[in-house]
């Protein structure tokens, strides 16, 4: 019972329960979306977007507007600037993006240190799951419901494009449009999740879960479900550690997620384990055909 009490102690308080709910809602969606982010090699774009929306967050705090509004505006402006910077072939897409992101973070810091700005830079950078409002929770719930429905609807085209983009185009799928939809979901996820995890740490909930489960899941659907479950679990561990160790909640959640990713990447896959000498033989599910 003592162990159970110890584990449940963080959610005895309203603040702890709200923090856990926020991280669970965000984790359930981002853990699933992350599979496509990693598959489509959009992790760098996600990081750039998350860091680049900092000026929007700071402006929202200065204006006293909801953070979500600032995050959405910041994400839109950052996406436009990043797209523009990445198009300059003379310097290369990655260098252009890096300069644009650094510029946006610098601008965010500059705005944050003006006398008019409330001193919330730390919270904007590293998140504050313990300070979530009702509005944040509603936004996270809507993200999970609407974003989850969008992911379910786009599942087959996304899989077809990820497997063979040109082949999917011949089946009537429009890969460019689909990528745009994926980027829109990513921007939405970042704008909502940044409330809890901040501009610097939000990437953990998008990228760490798929990294942890991708090699072990048999299908994209299973990878998404496992990523969502792992993100919720790691989020709960992070909140628990933060409560008992007195560490920063956002950073604790991000570290728990990254630890899960490291563990998942280090574990051998089922096929590797089966191939080890001395591993118990498993009967094939179907009769294997002759090679060829």
């Amino acid at each position, binding site marked *: 019972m003592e162990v159970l009490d110890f584990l449940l102690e963080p959610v005895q308080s309203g603040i702890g329960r709200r923090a856990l709910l926020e991280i669970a809602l965000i984790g359930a969606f981002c853990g699933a979306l992350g599979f496509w982010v990693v598959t489509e090699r959009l992790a760098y774009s996600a990081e750039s977007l998350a860091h680049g929306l900092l000026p929007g967050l700071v402006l929202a705090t200065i204006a006293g507007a909801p953070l979500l509004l600032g995050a959405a505006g910041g994400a839109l402006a950052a996406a436009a600037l990043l797209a523009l910077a990445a198009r300059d072939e003379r310097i290369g897409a990655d260098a252009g993006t890096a300069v644009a992101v650094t510029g946006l973070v610098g601008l965010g810091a500059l705005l944050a240190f003006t006398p008019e700005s409330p001193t919330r830079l730390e919270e904007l950078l590293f998140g504050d799951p313990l300070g979530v409002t009702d509005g944040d929770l509603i936004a996270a719930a809507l993200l999970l419901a609407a974003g989850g429905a969008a992911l379910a609807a786009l599942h*087959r085209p996304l899989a*077809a494009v990820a497997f063979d983009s*040109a082949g*999917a185009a011949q*089946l009537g*799928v429009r890969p460019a449009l689909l990528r745009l939809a994926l980027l829109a979901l990513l921007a939405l996820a970042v704008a909502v999740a940044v409330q809890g995890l901040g501009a610097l740490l939000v990437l953990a909930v998008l990228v760490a879960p798929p990294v942890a489960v991708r090699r072990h899941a048999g*299908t994209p659907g299973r990878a998404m479900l496992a990523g969502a479950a792992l993100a919720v679990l790691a989020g709960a561990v992070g909140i628990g550690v933060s409560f008992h160790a007195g560490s920063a909640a956002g950073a604790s959640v991000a570290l728990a997620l990254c630890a899960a990713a490291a563990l998942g990447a280090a574990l051998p896959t089922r096929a590797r384990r089966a191939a080890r000498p001395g591993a118990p033989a498993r009967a094939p599910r*179907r009769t294997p055909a002759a*090679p*060829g």
Partner: protein
Amino acid sequence: MSALRVEGLSAGYGGPPVLRDVSFEAEPGETVCVLGPNGGGKTTLFRVLLGELEPQAGRVAGPSRPAYVAQTERTRLDFPVSALDVALMGTLARGRWWLPPRGADRSAAAAALERVGLADRADTRFGELSGGQRQRALLARALVQDARLLLLDEPLSGVDPASAASIAGVFEELRAEGRTLLVSSHDVESARTFDSVLCLHGRQVAFGPPAEVLDRSTLEATYGSEMIVLEEGGAKRAVTVHHHEHGDH
């Protein structure tokens, strides 16, 4: 009525045409082998027929959405899908992409796998199949589309004999069903089994039945220095030197 009619086609990528003066017709149930060296225009022709590339000149009359079997190199082997999942992707051409596959879709995909001899590999990951089996899974995806015109990009290149036999068997069935097949190939000898041969080298070198088209002068005009002639027991055999390149025109 022709299943496919191409008249005076020229196509390119912004600059001068990389393929010009192509005119041919294919009837329902006809198989056409498209021969040519790397950069000869095979892929450009396919891209025009698939609607990916606008012709610079000429016209194409045929089905708006032919089925296409790409080379397996274009697929991602690390993506976690089974052979059945790949065949099921063919049902996206039927619309309703936002809903899970129906029972009828699953039946069609299973039947297509059966047809290419992969029924017992339905649950195997695509990346774990042999090269020939992967090619057959992609063929199953195209079969599910139920298209009247099928374009196949070097489907027999580098596949094992069992897969080659299975694919050739499916070609025969498709021909009997009245479907038209355009198959690009580097293999001059296999071209003799098709109804017609289209030779490309930046332009149309020849088109007609293999017995008329596959002579030494046409093949030299098609392949140039990429062709060598082997003499085996008095019989002469043309062999092309295949430099495999990505971004083939």
